[in-house]
């Protein structure tokens, strides 16, 4: 930690810089008064990269392979979301059955590896050694030393997902694979056989990971309250309300479980979402327009998806979902640390779904590219990335060159929630206390629950409908301006 002067009179500043065991670059700052009461707790996203700016002027068929380099853990999320948009731009509305299944297999593989990485390699040390455990042990090497079987399961689960990605895209990280209207190569049957042979172990280890997290969450009574808060939730759902990761309609729920909207066509996303800019972070603050900015923020990701859906279509994950929901007598479970448990439930769903697809004879088919109709000038692709709903939107001129790009990245949607979680934990655990490294790690534990992908979150540009507020030093509003999705300005 670094401790020192702050710009706000009467307070001192403590910074956690960088946040570790997350993807990307962020820092947390606390302002405390003389009695160690927390005046402010903030998560700053400090990177600005500008992908949507420099993708302008590039041909549209390049886009998926640019944007996947936003992130090294979830490049496939961006490749697939962009590919869905590119399909539209190329005039393809329906892929061939094999191409569709390959894309699903690719997505399940990447969600599985990303979720495994996040629990085993990044956050398990907090639960295995305690939030205040020895900082020198509180990492994957410590888990390898002290809990080698758990570490090995994590390594193998992640490896399985990466092998699926490599089989389909040619590399484990930043491969190719998707092309406008289809895929660039079939799945070789020897690769399929090798993966299928592993899949039973993968299923078993996924179930064990669910059980481990269920046990952690239910035996530590204090975990139920840790950074817990009632929030709205947003995600895709399938056409029968089931958990859906690749393609579906948008659903949002109130904290009490009531529907804010359901089965919204994601191409209309600009009608429901706005993003607010604040001076102290390059990451914006999205909210649901119809609820306004104070009430309209929401959570995405595994907790949101499991809360939002009516059921999961694969049996073991569905049983796990029911067990998870049973921790609360309310309609929804708001436990922030429940993200870890629901993440493993989703990993189990991926494992089951992968086995089904590997057993499908069409998965090794060679009919991979659909007929293209006329080219279009707008393409929108939305997908449930491991960390939450991901929006890709591209506009293209008649030469095929990108003119505008807008990305709303999963972690951005959790921005307000992460900041609120920080405030809750700071007030509960650090307020009035002497600040120690162990206590500061509690703040990071709150942020880690969201599995933030801060590299993704800092693509940072867009021409979204935007609201900007100017506030004075007392926080009173001086001026507000909103640019609507059609470009009109309201003051």
């Amino acid at each position, binding site marked *: 930690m670094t401790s020192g002067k702050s710009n706000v009179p009467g307070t001192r500043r403590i910074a956690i*810089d960088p946040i*570790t065991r997350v993807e990307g670059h962020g820092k947390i700052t606390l302002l405390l008064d003389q009695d160690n009461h927390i005046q402010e707790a903030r998560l700053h996203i400090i990177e600005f990269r500008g992908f949507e700016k*420099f993708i302008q002027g590039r041909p549209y068929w390049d886009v998926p392979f640019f944007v996947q*380099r936003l*992130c090294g853990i979830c490049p496939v999320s961006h490749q697939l979301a962009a590919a869905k948009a590119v399909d539209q731009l190329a005039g393809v509305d329906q892929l061939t059955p094999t191409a569709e299944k390959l894309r699903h297999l690719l997505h399940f593989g990447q969600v599985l590896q990303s979720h495994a990485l996040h629990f085993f*390699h990044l956050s398990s040390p907090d639960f295995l050694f305690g939030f205040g455990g020895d900082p020198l042990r509180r990492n994957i090497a410590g888990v390898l030393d002290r809990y080698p079987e758990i570490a090995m399961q994590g390594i193998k689960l992640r490896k399985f997902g990466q092998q699926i990605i490599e089989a389909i895209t040619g590399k484990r990280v930043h491969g190719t694979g998707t092309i406008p209207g289809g895929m660039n190569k079939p799945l070789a049957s020897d690769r399929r056989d090798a993966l299928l042979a592993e899949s039973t172990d993968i299923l078993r280890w996924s179930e064990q990971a669910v059980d481990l997290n269920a046990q952690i969450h239910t035996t530590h009574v204090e975990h139920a309250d840790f950074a817990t808060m009632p929030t709205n939730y947003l995600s895709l759902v399938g056409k029968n309300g089931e958990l859906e990761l690749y393609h579906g309609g948008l659903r949002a729920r109130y904290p009490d479980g009531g529907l804010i909207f359901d089965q919204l066509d994601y191409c209309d996303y600009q009608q429901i979402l706005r993003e607010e800019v604040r001076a102290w972070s390059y990451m914006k603050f999205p909210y649901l327009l119809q609820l306004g900015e104070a009430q309209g923020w929401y959570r995405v990701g595994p907790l949101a998806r499991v809360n939002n859906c009516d059921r999961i279509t694969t049996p073991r994950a569905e049983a796990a979902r029911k067990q998870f929901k049973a921790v609360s007598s309310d309609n929804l479970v708001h436990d922030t640390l429940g993200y870890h448990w629901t993440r493993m439930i989703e990993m189990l769903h991926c494992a089951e779904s992968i086995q089904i697809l590997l057993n499908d004879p069409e998965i090794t088919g060679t009919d991979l590219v659909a007929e293209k109709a006329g080219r279009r000038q707008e393409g929108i692709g939305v997908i449930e990335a491991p960390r939450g709903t991901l929006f890709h939107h591209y506009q293209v001129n008649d030469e095929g060159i990108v003119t505008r790009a807008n990305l709303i990245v999963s972690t951005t949607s959790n921005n307000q929630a992460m900041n609120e979680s920080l405030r809750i934990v700071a007030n509960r655990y650090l307020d009035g206390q002497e600040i120690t490294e162990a206590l500061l790690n509690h703040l990071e534990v709150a942020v880690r629950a969201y599995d933030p992908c801060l*590299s993704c979150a800092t693509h940072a540009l867009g*021409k979204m409908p935007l609201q*900007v507020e100017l506030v004075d030093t007392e926080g009173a509003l001086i001026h507000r*301006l909103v640019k609507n999705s059609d470009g009109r300005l309201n003051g």
Partner: protein
Amino acid sequence: MTDRKIRIATTSLAGCFGCHMSFLDIDEQLVQLNERIEFNRSPLTDIKHCGPSDIGLIEGGVCNADNVRVLREFRANCKILIAVGACAITGGVPAMRNYFDLRECLEEVYLHGAGVTNPQIPDDVELPLLLDKVYPIQEVVPVDYFLPGCPPPADAFLAILLPLLNGEASPQVADRRFYYD
């Protein structure tokens, strides 16, 4: 050769973490590697500042003042510094913003992009100042070895680390098949 573990520090500057993920793609070989190395500052550990280390792995180019500070901390503390991946070696994909004026980029997003008056570009003191361009790391500090790739494949990491762990002076990375993408 002492018995102590070789200390490795890693960081991602203006990178996407793909090189770190590729490193983890050594899969089960992490077990054997863990017997010979310990991590110092790394995204994978909670050590927030690079202490004296034997090897530093740097992913990502240099895009803001914080990257410069961290890179210099690594160079000062690591006996051997390895530039890992396209971004550290050439600037990589983030360096595509170099074709545009930075002011243009920021103004497009936070000023004109929304068409607002009295707009604000995030400028809180907590945000590190952006450099005019994204730079390869060797334009800021001297670098000992280069591991190309986007990302370098997992076995490339072992090919460069294992000879160093064995005390060899100059692992012949160029003898192996390597890629820029």
